[in-house]
């Protein structure tokens, strides 16, 4: 037999060491990337919170000054908020899809996002009321567990968002999260099944296909 330079045990130990270093480095890089993603999402949530706080103050100012001159500005603001919210939602979706190994780190971020999202909905509803804006607002209640048609509903909503742009503002509410504000909304709109939509304050339980939703908007 051709002679190898070292003993079999030497190769086992070296391979164990090298493969462990590579594997642990892989896990480490994964954790660092996860952390970066998480902190980037956190700062996006903070940014959105301050944009919302600005919008709220602007609404109050408009109310105090009794002027409708700021409406054009606020309408632009509502469009920005909608874009910011969609981008944040996409970041979170991708983060959720990729975060199969450590899903626990995702939940606090998602809860923060839900708070900002609902606040955004409230702000846009207030802007709509104060400025007589004609955009539609949709609260979309979904559940990650046992909701076969939720993804389809999201796709139909995305279709109308792309079609109508700023004429429709969509807020996707994850009902699987155990949050008081979501419970309150569910109770208020009598949401018991998923998906369910609340369009301009009117609840529509169950999956709304493309044709039906087109009619409602």
């Amino acid at each position: 037999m051709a002679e190898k330079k070292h003993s079999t045990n030497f190769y086992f130990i070296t391979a164990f060491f090298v493969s462990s270093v590579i594997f642990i480095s892989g896990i480490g890089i994964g954790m660092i990337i996860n952390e970066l993603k998480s902190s980037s999402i956190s700062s996006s949530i903070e940014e959105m919170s301050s944009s919302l706080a600005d919008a709220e103050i602007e609404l109050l100012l408009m109310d105090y000054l009794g002027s409708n001159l700021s409406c054009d500005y606020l309408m632009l603001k509502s469009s920005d908020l909608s874009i910011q919210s969609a981008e944040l939602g996409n970041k979170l979706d991708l983060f959720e899809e990729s975060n199969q190994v450590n899903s626990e780190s995702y939940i606090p971020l998602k809860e923060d996002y839900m708070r900002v999202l609902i606040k955004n909905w409230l702000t846009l509803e207030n802007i709509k009321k104060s400025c007589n804006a004609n955009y539609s607002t949709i609260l979309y209640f979904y559940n990650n567990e046992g909701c076969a048609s939720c993804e389809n509903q999201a796709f139909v909503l995305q279709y109308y968002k792309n079609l109508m742009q700023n004429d429709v503002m969509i807020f996707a509410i994850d009902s699987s999260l155990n949050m008081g504000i979501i419970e309150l909304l569910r109770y208020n709109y009598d949401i018991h099944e998923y998906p369910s939509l609340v369009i301009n304050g009117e609840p529509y339980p169950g999956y709304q296909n493309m044709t039906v939703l087109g009619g409602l908007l």
Partner: protein
Amino acid sequence: MELICLTVLGLLYFVLFISCFWLIVFLDNMSELKKDPNPKKKYFISAIVPAYNEEKTIAETINSLLKQNYPRKFFEIIVINDGSTDATRKKCEEYSKKGLIRLINQKNGGKANAMNNAIKRAKGELIYVLDADSCADENSFKHLIGYFDNPRVAAVTSSMRVTCKESFLQKIQWVEYLFSILMRKIMSLFNCLYVTPGPGSIYRKKVIKEIGGFSEETLTEDMEIAFNIQHHNYVIENSLNSTVLTNTPDKLTNLIKQRRRWYTGFIEDSTSYKHFYFNKSKGFLGRFLLPANVLTTIALIFLTSYSVYTILDSFFVSYSNIGAVEFNFLSMIQPEKLPLLIYGINLYTIMGLIFMIVSIIIIYFSLKTSDEEINLKNNFLNYIFYLFFYSLLMTLFWTDSIIYKLMFRKNNKGWKYG
């Protein structure tokens, strides 16, 4: 952490460990791998060519043996026509009439039977076997015989290369065979080769007789005899310099058929020699390689099936989603999502990248060992096909072989041809 994640990570670590192990052994011994021992004496070799319906390739096979850079008086060529129904016999008779070969015609009895028959009549101290669809390099004999100066050596295998790389499947097999050349050499350092392939393996006749010749009751006589040699504690060596060119299937049906025979043969032979598993007296082969190969196969099937399931699942979800908007692709436009793809990177993506890098390193060293040029211009597709489709094909072949073994192969009859 979910059980599925832990299983995936555990199996990935195992495969990574095995890959690192072989790579480290290779790198540590790289300078010595190409050295074949110089023979202290001339051995008489009987080159045996079992042939069944090989009219298209037999002449080339015989010519490659006739061109051997080895004294003609020290080797004979025996062609066993195993009841061919085509012009194989006629083609061989042209050579035998000139006294260039000995032709034995027999009723079709299968490859192992043909080889056993030829061995009985062979004069050589060494038996060189060459499938009738393969061609030996002119220096094959020279490179192989030096190993037999060690009386414990019972067989030496050659490096098999693919002649044709035209079709998608042949491109993948071209890389696979180069990888096998590397692996067989490294495995020989641990005396854990458990197959002596039909094209280009050479045996010590005395040992073949001692262990009862080639089994006629197995699908893979070249694997069974290697197990048998290991069972009798002899040594199997490998020469990188002795090369054999062989044909590979170009159609999926033929490839499935070939791999079904190989892998079912492995299942049966390794079951027949199950006492090897975890047996210290069987050295590295029993203690590590066979159990590791079984676990690697399980890992391959599991990881590939899981990846395929994930891809298909997301495909069906996307299909259903697009269907929900009546296949209007406006719903898919989310321009802000593209720069955000970094958020989709996860541990599996990183592990996938690591394995891709390890695979590229292995391909690089396989090419280097075989003195093949990287030649990206001509071979780029071969590498891409191998990297992305090899594990998928292996999973298909293994699954097919396991189903075939469990459901359809009732009697363990030997293989004939085809």
